């Protein structure tokens, strides 16, 4: 149960932080339609976040609420992988971060729908539909930018090179994940990775992008060792809850 809580929090932190990053785009997108699309994905992720934190609060049964869990922890207590906390950069960086994540998210939720844990399974089933839209959106944009102009290709290839080192952590399993997987509650990520690689490889090929080779994979976020970017994100995210503890909004 403690491990299930731990894992649920990790998923919640992940969608929270990525949703937050996407929401930073609101009003600043390159095309009005994409402003809408990114807000949509952010909303889906925040919705998923809420369900997950609510479930975590239930598992924990200490009277903490979704907002306590989202707003009142220290940077080192957040368990999201490093990828999702990376800054937005340009639109290509955001699309690439999303694309790397979406494949993972899609295949994970697909399996997680069948978890014997009905809490996780229910949330996964709902979010899986949304994730199917996300992966379509980001894959299309990878292809458009890769197989677009010379400039767009140069930029998105660069985004790929900058972000690829954060892709490995998605599939590297923590102690908690290993145990939950052995207990059959969550998929073995080693079975997800080939599916993800197939999808990613196909899209990159169509986008005429080259996957960087022999990249040293960074990890740490899932055990609370973040990059310095997360702290600044949290100062904004948590500001009002910190400034006025315990109030209703």
């Amino acid at each position: 149960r403690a491990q299930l809580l731990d894992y649920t929090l990790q998923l919640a932190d992940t969608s929270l932080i990525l949703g937050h990053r996407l929401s930073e785009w609101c009003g600043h997108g390159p095309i009005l339609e994409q402003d809408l699309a990114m807000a949509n994905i952010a909303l889906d992720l925040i919705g998923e976040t809420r369900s997950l934190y609510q479930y975590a609060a239930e598992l924990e049964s200490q009277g903490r609420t979704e907002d306590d869990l989202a707003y009142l922890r220290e940077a080192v207590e957040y368990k999201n992988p490093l990828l999702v906390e990376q800054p937005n950069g340009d639109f290509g960086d955001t699309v690439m971060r999303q694309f790397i994540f979406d494949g993972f998210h899609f295949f994970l939720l697909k399996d997680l729908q069948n978890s014997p844990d009905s809490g996780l399974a229910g949330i996964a089933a709902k979010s899986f539909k949304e994730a199917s839209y996300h992966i379509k959106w980001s894959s299309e944009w990878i292809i458009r930018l890769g197989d677009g102009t010379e400039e767009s290709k140069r930029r998105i290839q660069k985004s790929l090179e900058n972000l690829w080192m954060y892709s490995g952590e998605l599939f590297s399993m923590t102690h908690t994940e290993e145990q939950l997987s052995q207990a059959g509650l969550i998929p073995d990520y080693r079975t997800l990775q080939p599916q993800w690689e197939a999808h990613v490889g196909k899209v990159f090929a169509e986008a005429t992008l080259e996957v960087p080779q022999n990249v040293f994979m960074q990890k740490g976020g899932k055990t609370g060792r973040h990059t310095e970017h997360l702290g600044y994100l949290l100062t904004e995210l948590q500001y009002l809850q910190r400034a006025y503890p315990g109030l209703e909004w």
Partner: protein
Amino acid sequence: METIIDKSLEELFEEKIANEIRIEPKDWMPEQYRKTLVRQISQHAHSEIVGMLPEGNWITRAPSLKRKAILLSKVQDEAGHGLYLYSAAETLGTSRDQMIADLHSGKAKYSSIFNYPTLSWADIGAIGWLVDGAAIMNQVPLIRTSYGPYARAMVRVCKEESFHQRQGFEIMMTLCNGAPAQKKMAQEAFNRWWWPTLMMFGPKDSESPNTEQSMRWKIKRFTNDELRQRFVDMMVPQAEFLGLTVPDKDLKWNEAKNGYDFGDVDWEEFWNVVKGNGPCNKDRINTRVKAHEEGAWVREAALAHAQKRVQREAAKNVA
């Protein structure tokens, strides 16, 4: 010969207007009617887009996940409104690109209210409650406006706006029923937004040159002063309900007119903001221009890719 045809077209047009029959994109319409509409609809579209900024400013700092989702969703709705309205304006023969270029060059205007900054979370409540409230008052009559696409866009816009207004009121209510610091925050925001909101109805009737023609064409249905009065009469009881003090020492119920007397707007401030000297005019336009310029490569790539696809399809069909 042409004159005669034109005249009969004009007569037809005037007849439709008189009988409340909608003008549609393919119908003949006077050049001035078309121009007025493009100006008004694009200004309205721009207001939605620029209006995303002051509220967007608090998305990352929203105080709860629920509020964050509601706010993000609201700002997203505004982007959606912008889209319908640009489409409606495009039916009159002006492209979205052209309209955006006019916004960025300063030729086209947008609602001055968005040149005020959002300085606290309560501003999000105040904007929803007051600004959306005023917008609805301005816009509901537009559902009956004479130009079809605009009228239809307004149906959806108004429906969503009243939803937003309720959310804004709810934020204010939560703050006003909350801790003293929250109530203070609400009053402070109310103080800052009250007068700019009254300015949203435009100059006094005596100084509004376009009103008469627009009313005649049924683009506009009420005068600025009429709408302003209705707004004050509607909002004062709501403020009282919230326990907020209207920052107007001249406010007084007038039994005779069955409405409130209220102080005069600071017209000097009004014209300053209209002329581009509001607290955020420069920031707002710079932000929009920056987003547009930084997105140029994305738009070019999307276009280039679409063209490649078309060519590949064509090549396939030939083969």
